[in-house]
Structures are given as C-alpha cells and as structure tokens.
C-alpha cells in the first residue's frame, strides 16, 4: 500500500467522485453507481487503507439504519397486509430462491472444474449462496426514496414501486438484523438475540424518559442537540460492539431512542441528514474500493491466466445482473397482473425495480465484515449492484418505450381481465362523458353527472378502487385507459367529453389524440404546459394551482384592502373547511352538490 494519509485518501475519493457524479447527472443516473465506480477506480490505485476507510464507511451504514429506525416509529403500523405487500414478499422469495439456486450451481461448477476457479480458496457454500439470494431479492432504494418519489402520487405504477420498495426496505432491515445478530454463525444465538433485546429495551427507555431530559439540557441549542444525538448513536454502536453484536443492531436501537419530531427538531434532523449523506457517500465509495479488479498489466500480457481468478466473480455478477434486470421485472409483472393490475402498470413497476438494492449491498458488506462472506462473492454482489443500478436507470427512463416494444412484438399477449365485470358499459351508450380516474376529482364528477342525468363512463385501472366502482358507478371500465380495447369498451369515439383527472403525461398525450372527434379536458400542474396543451387541441386544461390562485386572490385582496382583518379571515376560512357551513362564494347549485355528498 502506498503511504498516504487518510485525509488524502478521502480527498482523492471525493475528487474522483465529483466528475463521475456530474456525468451521472448528465445521463440522469442515480448518484450511487457513480460513488461505487469512484471507489472502484481509486481502489485500484492501492492507496486506501481499507480498515480505516471501512471504519468511516460503517458510520455510513450506521447512519442509514439509524435514520430508517427513527422514521419507523411514526410509520403507521398496519395489521392487514395489502396486495402489493404480498407481491413484494413473494417476489423477494422467488428471486431469493433463484439467486440461491444459481449461486449454488456456480459453486458446484467451480468445484467440479467446469468453470475455471483459479485462486478461489473457499468453496461457494450454501451460506454464500444465501447472500447472493438476498442481493437478488432486495431492490430497496432507501437513500433515494425521499428524493425521487412524489408523495401521494395517484399514478398506479408510482405507488406500486414505492410500496414494494418500502416492503423491501423493511425486509432488508430485518435480514440485516438477523445477519448481524450472528444467526448465520454458530454462536449462541439466544445470547445474541438477548443482547439485541437489551439494546432495544434501553433505547425505548431513553426515548420515553431520557430524551426529554436531554432536550431540556440542550436548552434549545441545535448544535448541542445534534452533537448529543450523534453521541447517542455512537454510544449505542460502541455498546453493540462491546456486546459483540453488530453495529447495525446498535444503530437500529439508537434510532428508536430518538423522538421523531421533524418540526420540533427540524434543524437537528437537517444536520443529521448532512452528516449521513457525507458518510453514506464514503460508504458507497469504500464498497467500490473493496473490489479488486485483476491487474491490467497481467490481463494484457496473458489474458487467460490474468483473468482466471476473476471468472467466478464475473459469472456470479453476470448471473445476478440477469436475475435482477431480466427475471425480476418478469416476476413482479406476472405477480401484479395476477393481482388484478393492468399489464402496463405491472410492466412499468417491474422495470422500475430491476436492480440490486442499496440495502442488498449493506447486507453484503456486513456479512463480509462479520466473516460470513468470501471476497469473490462479495465482489460479485458489488459489481452486480453497480451494473444493475445503471441498467435500472436506463429501463426506468425508457420504461414506456420498452413497454410499447413489448406490446408491439406481442410478448405480453392480450390484456388479461381477472374479473368478469371489468366493463359495465351499456352497448349503445353515446353522448356520454368519459371520466378517467376515480380519485377525488373523478368522484365529484360522477356525482355531478348523476345529478344532472348525464350518462358517463369511468375508466380506472387501480384494483383498490374496484369495490367502489362496482358500488357507486353505473358504467365503468376497469382497465388501462391507453389500451385500444378500453377505448372501444367506453365507446370513446361517440362520447361528448373526455375528462382526464390523472396528471400523467402519457394519458394526456393519448386522449389529446382524440381531440378531433371528442372534446378533451386534461390536467396539468404547470402553466406553460397548459398553454401548450390548449394549443394542441385540449378544450380546457385543469390547472389546480391556477384555480386555487383565483380564490386566493379574493381573500388576499380583501385582507390587504382592509375588508377583513386577519382574525375575521381566519374565522371565515376555517368555517369554509367545515362542509356543513357552505361557503357563500359559490352558486347554489354548487352547494347542493356539497350537501349531496354529505348525505351519502
């Protein structure tokens, strides 16, 4: 190892990562593959003291698990498992089993000499295979979740992806706790679990009693609070080490000790986030640095012997990539279609989740550190993670195009309907209103149409809305709106109006293509886009902000002119929230629709 200080090594890592991050941004890739690649490059320079870097990197893991467990307290705990969660669990099981089987086969091939395994000292045992299975199964995106998903998205494949991800996250943490609690080793499991329970118990005591004291002592100083929380985390990590369980258990317990109050401690949590991001970056870079590529000179001079030690690594990595990028989307897609989702949502969801997750990497590194995982398998998992993350970014970006190609080639067959009453539209319907999406706006529109005896058809593709559709709607089509057969079923061509309440680009595009024959109302959030949509033939564009702005202008104007004082405005606007007292600003017809809703 070349002799450089830790600071220099860190500096080199970040300096290399910078341009890679910029390139990743240009290609719309996530930051993680860039960090792993930076580590991979710098790792080959042989300037990194792995032990020291790992120590810093494990702070990254600790912070990740810590933040996760801080948030988990306030998450709504449900006793009923939703259909998506079943899909997520079955998917993880299937992929896990496939991964294990694959690694096991590779192991046998290596041992019997079918594959050249030069330099591979340890055999690929079933234990090793288990970790390959874990890597294949989990596609969590814990680091990216908050940044990339929009909360409360009403697009089916978006919420499917995020729900499956959060189940994956949860599975990953459980696995991580199991792995690190030493279950895989033959240590006395009971003692290990006992220590874990002690740590968790301590954490809960701290949360209930000591945290308040800490808060009062810090006396409103964010710095003192931040430092105390970091110290608390470190203390738990040290305790975990002292008890010879994993720091992951410690970090998880430490998270439970913190009260999750993002308003009260906003500045402290902001601080934790920055610190976490710094150490997580170091973590992923270190992960990359731990992979040893065959020296280039050796490969060039004698490719066969130079590459030989690398064959098992590449084989396993390649297999993992195929499992996650090809098999996983198929499994997810099939499972979702089986659960009543349309093939478009199912396919796109699958294409969003086709990678080795970040938590899979964390499980791998914990296993490596604890001595359960041999280097080649670890390296294979890391390589597969980096490659599949990059590929996943591509499939995510081009998911709609990929779907089109698959449909055009007939790979997906015909749309499948697992309910007989998927469409309840009278054959001869015409001059009706087609309402796309049965969310809040859709429901209001249906009420209104019924009120004025206007025939309508609702199109919805979310199985969760199906019971309501059956109960409340005279005519509906339960299918992907963009399928031609849906268009036929809803008799779109002879409708008088189409209202798309979903803010989806592809839906908007699709319905605008009918604007020559039917009046089309679409929805968008952005004003420039609205103008463009009008230009392209929309009869009307719903811009929620614009509508809200109009009413706001009234209130604000009244306040500033002195018509209202702030208290009056407050009282008035609060009463508007209460639907019983009808806001005077709307027409009487409007207010009947209000009360109509309440009578229901």
């Amino acid at each position, binding site marked *: 190892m070349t002799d450089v200080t830790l600071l220099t090594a860190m500096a080199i890592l970040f300096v290399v990562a*910078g341009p890679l991050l*910029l390139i990743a941004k240009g290609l719309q890739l996530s930051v993680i593959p860039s960090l792993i690649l930076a580590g991979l490059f710098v790792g080959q320079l042989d300037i990194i003291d792995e032990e020291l870097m790992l120590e810093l990197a494990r702070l990254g893991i600790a912070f990740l698990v810590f933040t996760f467990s801080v948030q988990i307290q306030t998450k709504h705990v449900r006793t009923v498992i939703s259909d998506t969660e079943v899909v997520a669990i079955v998917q993880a099981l299937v992929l896990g089993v496939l991964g294990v089987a694959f690694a096991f086969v590779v192991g046998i091939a290596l041992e019997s000499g079918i594959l050249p395994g030069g330099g591979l000292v340890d055999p690929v045992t079933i234990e090793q295979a288990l970790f390959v299975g874990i890597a294949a199964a989990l596609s969590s995106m814990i680091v990216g979740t908050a940044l990339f998903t929009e909360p409360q998205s009403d697009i089916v494949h978006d919420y499917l992806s995020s729900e499956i991800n959060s189940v994956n996250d949860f599975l990953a943490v459980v696995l991580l706790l199991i792995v690190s609690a030493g279950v895989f080793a033959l240590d006395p499991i009971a003692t290990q679990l006992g220590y874990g329970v002690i740590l968790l118990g301590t954490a809960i005591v701290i949360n209930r009693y000591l945290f308040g004291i800490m808060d009062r002592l*810090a006396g409103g100083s964010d710095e003192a609070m931040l430092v105390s929380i970091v*110290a608390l985390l*470190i203390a738990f990590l040290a305790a975990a080490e002292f008890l010879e369980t994993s720091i992951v258990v410690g970090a998880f317990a430490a998270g439970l000790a913190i009260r999750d109050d993002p308003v009260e401690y906003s500045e402290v949590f902001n601080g934790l986030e920055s610190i976490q991001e710094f150490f997580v970056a170091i973590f992923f870079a270190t992960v990359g640095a731990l992979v040893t590529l065959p020296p280039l000179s050796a490969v060039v001079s004698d490719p066969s012997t130079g590459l030989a030690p690398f064959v098992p690594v590449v084989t396993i990595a390649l297999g993992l990539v195929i499992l996650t990028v090809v098999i996983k989307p198929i499994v997810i897609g099939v499972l979702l279609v089986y659960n009543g989702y349309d093939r478009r949502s199912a396919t796109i969801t699958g294409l969003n989740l086709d990678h080795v997750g970040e938590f899979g990497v964390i499980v791998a590194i914990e296993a490596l550190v604890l001595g359960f995982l041999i280097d080649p398998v670890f390296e294979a998992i890391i390589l597969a993670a980096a490659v599949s993350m990059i590929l996943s970014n591509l499939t995510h970006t081009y998911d709609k195009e990929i779907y089109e190609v698959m449909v055009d080639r007939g790979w997906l067959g015909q749309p499948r309907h697992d309910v007989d009453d998927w469409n309840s539209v009278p054959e001869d319907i015409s001059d009706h209103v087609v309402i796309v999406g049965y969310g809040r706006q859709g429901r209001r529109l249906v009420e209104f149409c019924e009120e004025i005896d206007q025939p309508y058809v609702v199109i919805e593709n979310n199985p969760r809305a199906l019971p309501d559709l059956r109960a409340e709607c005279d005519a509906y089509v339960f299918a992907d709106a963009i399928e031609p057969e849906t268009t036929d079923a809803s008799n779109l061509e002879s409708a008088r109006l189409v209202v798309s309440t979903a803010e989806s680009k592809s839906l908007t595009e699709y319905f605008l293509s009918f604007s020559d024959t039917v009046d089309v109302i679409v929805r968008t959030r952005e004003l420039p886009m609205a103008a463009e949509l*009008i230009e392209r033939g929309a*009869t009307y564009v719903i811009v929620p902000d614009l509508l809200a*702005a109009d009413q*706001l202008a009234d209130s604000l*104007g009244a306040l500033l002119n002195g018509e209202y004082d702030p208290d009056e405005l407050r009282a008035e606007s609060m009463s508007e929230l209460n639907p019983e007292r009808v806001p005077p600003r709307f027409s009487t017809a409007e207010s009947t629709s209000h009360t109509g809703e309440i009578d229901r």
Partner: protein
Amino acid sequence: MVEVGLASDVAIILVAAALVGVLAVRLGQPTIIGYILTGVVIGPVGLGLVEPSIITDTMAELGLAFLLFLLGIKIRIGEIRHLIAPIVKISIPQMVAVGAVGFGFAVLLPFSFEEAVIIGLAVVYSSTAVVIKMLNDKGEATSLHGKIDVGVLLAQDIVVVIILAVLAAGRPESVADVAVTLGIVMVLVSITTVAAIAASRYVLPSLFRRIADDTRLLFLVAISWLFLFVLVSDQINVLLSPIGIDAYLSIEMGAFLAGLAIAQLPYSKDLQGRVNPLTDLFVMVFFVSVALDFEASDLLAYWQEAVVVAVGLMIVKFIVFFTLLNWQRFDLETTFLGSIGMIQVSEFGIVVAVAAVESEPPFIGQAELGFITLVALMTMSVSVYFIQYNRQLFERVEPYLSRWEQSDPVQPADTEYRNHVVVIGYDEIARRALRILEDQYDQIVVIDRNVEHVEAVENAGYDVLFGDVQYEKIRKDAGVKYADFVFSSSDQREINEILLRETTEETTVFVEARTAEEAEQLYDAGAEYVILAPQLGVVQFIVLPRVVLREQIDLRPRGRRRHGAVAKREAVPRHHGSSRW
C-alpha cells in the same frame, strides 16, 4: 476478510464532548470551552482515557478544513472588496508588533534567544477556529467587525503557511532562503486564488446550475470541489518537487478558497445550511484533540510563565488591534468588537511550535511546546468569554473610550429585512399573490429551491434566496421572524408548521395544505389562511363542465372555442387583480 472495530477513542471523544458540551450550554458557557475541557479531562493530562488516533486526527483536520470552507462560502467578494486595503494595513503591523512583544516576553523569562524567536512567531496569530466558530454561533460572521477579523485571520494564515514552509525547510541558511520560500508561497497562494475566482466566474456557474435542483448532488459535488482544493494544497509539495520546487500550502487556505469560489454563486446559502452540521461535528473533534497530544508534565512545565505571558499577550493584542482599527477609521463599536475578538493565541501557534520541535535539529523542546500550547489554551478559553459577551462589555466601557470615537467612520452596509413579505416557493399561486402583495409592500423576498424558478423571480424583479426553507439559515437570511406577511406555497405540513412556529402573532401567515385535515391542523397552529389547492381546484372546475353540459352548448363541430383564460393570462403576465374566469 477485513477486521474492523469502531474506534473506541472516537466514541469516547464524541460521547464525552457531547456530555460536557450540553453541560456547557446548560451553564451558559460557550461550547468550545466544553470541548477543550473535555480534551484536557479525557486526554493524557487528565484521566488518560484516549490518545489521538488516525481517525481523530483526520476528523480534526477535516474540522478546520470545513470551518474555513464554510467561512469561504459566506463571503461575497463584492461585499468585502472595500475592506481589503484596511485589512492589509492592519494585519502586517499587528503581526510585527505582537511578534515583537511575544519575543520580548520570552526573552525576559527563562527562554533562550532561539526559543524566544519561535515563541514570538507562534503567538502572532489569533485563532481562526475560535473566532470564526464564535462569530458563526453569534451570527456575527458577516458583520463589519466579523469581516475585518476574518480578513486579518486569513492574512495571518498566509504567514503561518510561510513560517511552516521555512521551518520545514530546516534552519534557514540566509535571508535569501527565507525570501525564496516566501516568494514561492505568495505565488502559489496567488495562483490558487486566481484559479478559484476564475472558476467561480467561468466554470462553476453553469456547472452548479445544472445540479442545483438535486440537493444531495449539489452537496456531494461541493464537497468534491472542497477536497480538490484540499488535495492540491496538501500535495502541492509532491506535485512540484519533480521540477525542484519545495512548496507548501495550507489545507485551510485551500478550503477557504474552495468555499470562496462557491460563495459567488446563488446556491451558496443552501450549501451553508448543509455544510454547517458536518463542520460542527468535526470542529468538535478538533477542539477536543487540541489537548490530547500532551503529557501533563510537558504541558505544565512552565505554567507560571504561561499565565503571565497569556495575560500580557491578551492585553497587548487588544491594544494593538484597537489602535490599528481606530487608525483605519472604523467606528468605535466595530473597533472594540473587532479587537476584543482577536486577543487569543491560535491553534496555528501550536502547529508552528510542533514544526519547530520536529525540525532537524529542533528549535525548541517538548517543555517549550507545552508552554506555547498552554498559553494558546488559556487565551482561547478566556477570549471565548470576551467574544460571548462582547456587546455587553462594550456597553460598559463605551463611556471611557469616547475619545476614540470617529467623526466620520467607515459605514457598514445594512441589508436586513424588516416588516417585509416572505414568499416560499414560486408557483402559480405564489405568482398571483406576489402581484397583489407588491402593491402594498416594498420589500419582498422569495425563497425557492429550483434554479429556473429563482431565475424567473429575479427576472420579475423580486429579491430571491436559493435554498430550502427547512434550513434555519435560510429563514434567518430571509428574516422570517421579522416579516409582516409570510406566504407559503409549500404544501409540506412540517415546513408550514415550522414557519408558523417561527413567526409572531403580528405576522399574517398564508400557507398551503394538501388535505382538509392538514388544513385544520394548520389553522390550529395559527395560520390566518390555508390554501387548499386540490379541493379548490375541483370545486371550481366542476362549475365549468356544468356550464358546458347544462347550457347545452353544442361543442361539435368545434369552432376553436377555448375557455382561454390560460392562454390569455400567459399573454398578460403581470395583469393585476381582478381577472376572473
């Protein structure tokens, strides 16, 4: 298989420092004191629990680098340009005077001539870490006296680099040797500065504009930028030795310049909030580790002398600074506050002393090093209190200082917001509100975290802050606390609750909510008006199809009828008031 264990030293340092730090806050003491004390107590001087390790040393180094980086990010060159001349005129005589006095003290005490020279050189600087940390904590870093102090500290930093370079080169053979080293350092500092400023003008704006929307990417790329400068400064000797030049740059200088380059971009405010917590963490380790390197016997060998010199130096430093600042025609308050902050001996003094010990042959011994460290520790600790209570102190002594009052002092620029409007997020709702609000208010500041929005706001002629309102730093800069009207078009409940918590009863607060339940919570939290976009949207929009359907307008064949409000509004973007559907 890699063996790792979380460094228990780090754990002990963090936990102990946190405990003592919290205690210090509780007792109304500055946290720095708590940290330094922690180092004394848990280090070899006290209980001997920890010794410095590679990790603690690295974290301490990172602490200084981040502190200077953070400082750099805060400095807009335009705002300090007029201060450069006075700072140069203050810092050079100051260093000469203080160095001479330090040397004088040492010669009078039982130190040899050579030791006295080193002591003189070591006590010249005031502590970057203490002054900047205290100024940051008190929110005075960008006040006039803060800027002067920072400027002088940087000038001193250049000198430290030179001295270190000279010491590392061994005993200088001649004045010419010193001159060459000095020349090289000056050239390198100039080159780095020019590179940083050129980058901030030509490279960084487009680069950062592309990534600024992604918070995490912005943060990581900024850190990468910081490390680029750290790496170059740290390795400049390695880089230049092939061409036969012995050169040194300090990491701190590099970090400062990296920050300075970013400071000129509109995205710097957002980064300040993100870099601050990391700085807090690492600087803490730095202060704890100051006292870790010493054995009690070395540290206390000259304790009586150290007390005398510490008291003497603090008085002399104050007098020197006061005279020089007064000479540069700063007003009395600035002169006093600027001087009282700079009375301590710097951690760089220790660094210089260490270099003198490690020089071959050594200029001073361990005991002398302990003496310098003790002076630094004592003066740092005392000065922290002077900075903490600087204004109260000034009020007390002001009557006695009145004869130094300037008739025509240099005026500080004041750009604080009062009784203004703060608008969070620049969307359609906010735009409409702005058009109404601008009739009533002169000062309007918009906060947004989207590059395009920020540019649109600038074009519309309002003040704008790029940043995440979640950060206290941003809210402080926008003066949320003193606003007369706060308008939030963010529908994140947490953010709106933070805003409601921070504003007073007098402030009118309009916020946005996603659901009726959230709206009620926000009313309970004190909002004057809650905008409920999705609901409002649907209510009004139902009216339209109703008209379309009920009035039996035959829409086919379609004459390009458009309820053209959207298009019309685009065409007349700044139409005031009463445009209705």
